[in-house]
């Protein structure tokens, strides 16, 4: 049984990495377990300047999920490189930097800043941010804008670029094909679905930002569907995410076509979930007849053995 996973720029001991924004820069979790156990780490979104983010409350619980509106709080790319990437460089752990911005220029500047350190192995391009120049349209819901920012970042980057797709679109394959054509080395999907919760006492949206991103098991069926659809129409690798809680969930993502996976919200439920999934994965793969991670990728698209009838 091998968990070894190879995708552009990344040779992973195993296909499990914490999702961006759900693991900070790894410091807190490094006090709980050895980060070297992870396949990789996707760090919190970086912008050019430091950002305070949204007002609180920033999170709300929903049925089998949660809403968040952190608002990209981060100390800015330079501080991240100096204080956080340097810390993570002590580990034998591929680092994926999540890049955010409000203009193409900002995305490019953040990407260029990251190229100053040799410790970033890949860029995850977070196109779910509103484009201030285009009046707030999200890069992630317009294929032309998405292709444009992808091409520019790709040019600025020395490492492979994974474009993180937003699920808030009518047609995910159009988005995926647009960024693939623009040069994306891989895809990361899905980001959160936009949602809201209204507090009955205050008669207001509970989050200070009103809307927030829905994550957790609630959205897993949407993630699986989108990955399955995109797998049939693109050929670049996919880092899958959205509601993963267990090693069985990981296998479902692999079958759908993900090459590796990220775990987000589950870290809040159980801070040890990543190492626990990594530990459980070999047995689960074996149980369902696989002897490696790579063997399982995309197998949900073939007709396998039939639903075993139970006697």
């Amino acid at each position: 049984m091998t968990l070894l996973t190879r995708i552009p720029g990344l040779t992973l001991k195993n296909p499990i990495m914490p999702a961006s924004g759900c693991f900070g820069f790894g410091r807190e979790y490094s006090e709980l377990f050895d980060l070297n156990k992870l396949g990789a780490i996707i760090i919190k979104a970086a912008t050019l300047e430091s950002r305070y983010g949204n007002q609180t409350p920033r999170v709300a619980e929903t049925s089998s999920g949660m809403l968040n509106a952190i608002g990209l709080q981060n100390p800015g790319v330079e501080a991240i490189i100096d204080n956080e990437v340097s810390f993570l460089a002590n580990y034998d752990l591929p680092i994926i930097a999540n890049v955010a911005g409000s203009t193409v220029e900002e995305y490019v500047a953040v990407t260029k800043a990251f190229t100053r350190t040799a410790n970033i192995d890949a860029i995850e391009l977070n196109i779910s941010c509103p484009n201030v120049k285009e009046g707030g349209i999200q890069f992630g819901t317009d294929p032309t804008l998405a292709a444009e920012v992808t091409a520019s970042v790709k040019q600025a980057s020395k490492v492979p670029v994974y474009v993180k797709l937003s699920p808030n679109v009518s047609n995910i394959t159009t988005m995926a094909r647009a960024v693939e054509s623009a040069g994306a080395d891989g895809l990361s999907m899905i980001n959160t679905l936009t949602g809201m919760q209204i507090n009955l006492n205050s008669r207001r949206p509970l989050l200070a930002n009103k809307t927030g991103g829905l994550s957790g098991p609630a959205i897993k069926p949407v993630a699986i569907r989108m990955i399955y659809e995109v797998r049939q129409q693109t050929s670049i690798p996919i880092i899958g995410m959205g509601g993963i809680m267990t090693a069985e969930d990981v296998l479902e993502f692999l079958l759908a076509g993900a090459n590796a996976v990220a775990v987000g919200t589950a870290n809040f439920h159980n801070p040890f979930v990543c190492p626990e999934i990594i530990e459980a994965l070999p047995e689960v793969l074996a149980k369902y007849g696989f002897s490696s991670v790579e063997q399982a990728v995309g197998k949900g698209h073939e007709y396998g053995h039939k639903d075993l009838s139970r006697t």
Partner: protein
Amino acid sequence: MNKTSVTIISKKIIAKETIELTFHAEGYVNQISPGQFIHINVGNGSSNLLRRPISIADVDVDSQIVTIIFKIVGVGTDQLSRTEVGDKLDILLPCGSGYPINQLELDRALIIGGGIGVPPLYYLAKQLNKQGVAVTAVIGFQSKDYVFYESKFKELGNCHVVTDDGSYGFKGFVTDLLNDTPIDYDYFFSCGPTGMLKAVSTQLKNRNGYISIEQRMGCGVGACYACVVPTNDGTNGFKKICKDGPVFQANEVVLV
């Protein structure tokens, strides 16, 4: 911070909608300082993903028993209220930073608690008392039915009970009592709803003190930035309540 599974050894309704639970936490209690909290998985499969933060209300180092007190206000605390003696609780502990009492020079402490802000102050008062500090407690509740731990605070020093409606003790807010009643103290320590903390911090702004604050949490370990609070020093800085707090110096952070 550790993740562990503990077994409930007692459960008591100590006031209206208010429940006291105790559990053994062998090997973990010596790390606990007053003001810290535990982060509880309230169960129910994946329906309730976010843990609930509940303050540590008391610790018995000899028996390694931890006490928590919570009020039923929503689905999570309701679920918690249905656990029975013998049931397991999946918790993270100890979380956050408590009252730095070992670093303070003080002879007399004023404790100001409101509602479910009272529990962490009890363990604080007990530790202060143990260190020879004279403790005066002012604890406020909605009404008589919600009052708890008055006699326990009385064992440690003076205790004034205040109720919003005057159905028990002094009528009004804790700040009204502080206006009325001269109390000598070196430091104050306060925990309660934000409105109360604001009133207390304003009224006592020239005194040394610590407050403990609440915010909705994601991770509870400092990684997700859900629970930030701006600092008051004009640097655009911030603190994480789950990690840097919940205890802060009064006026260190902006109460929102």
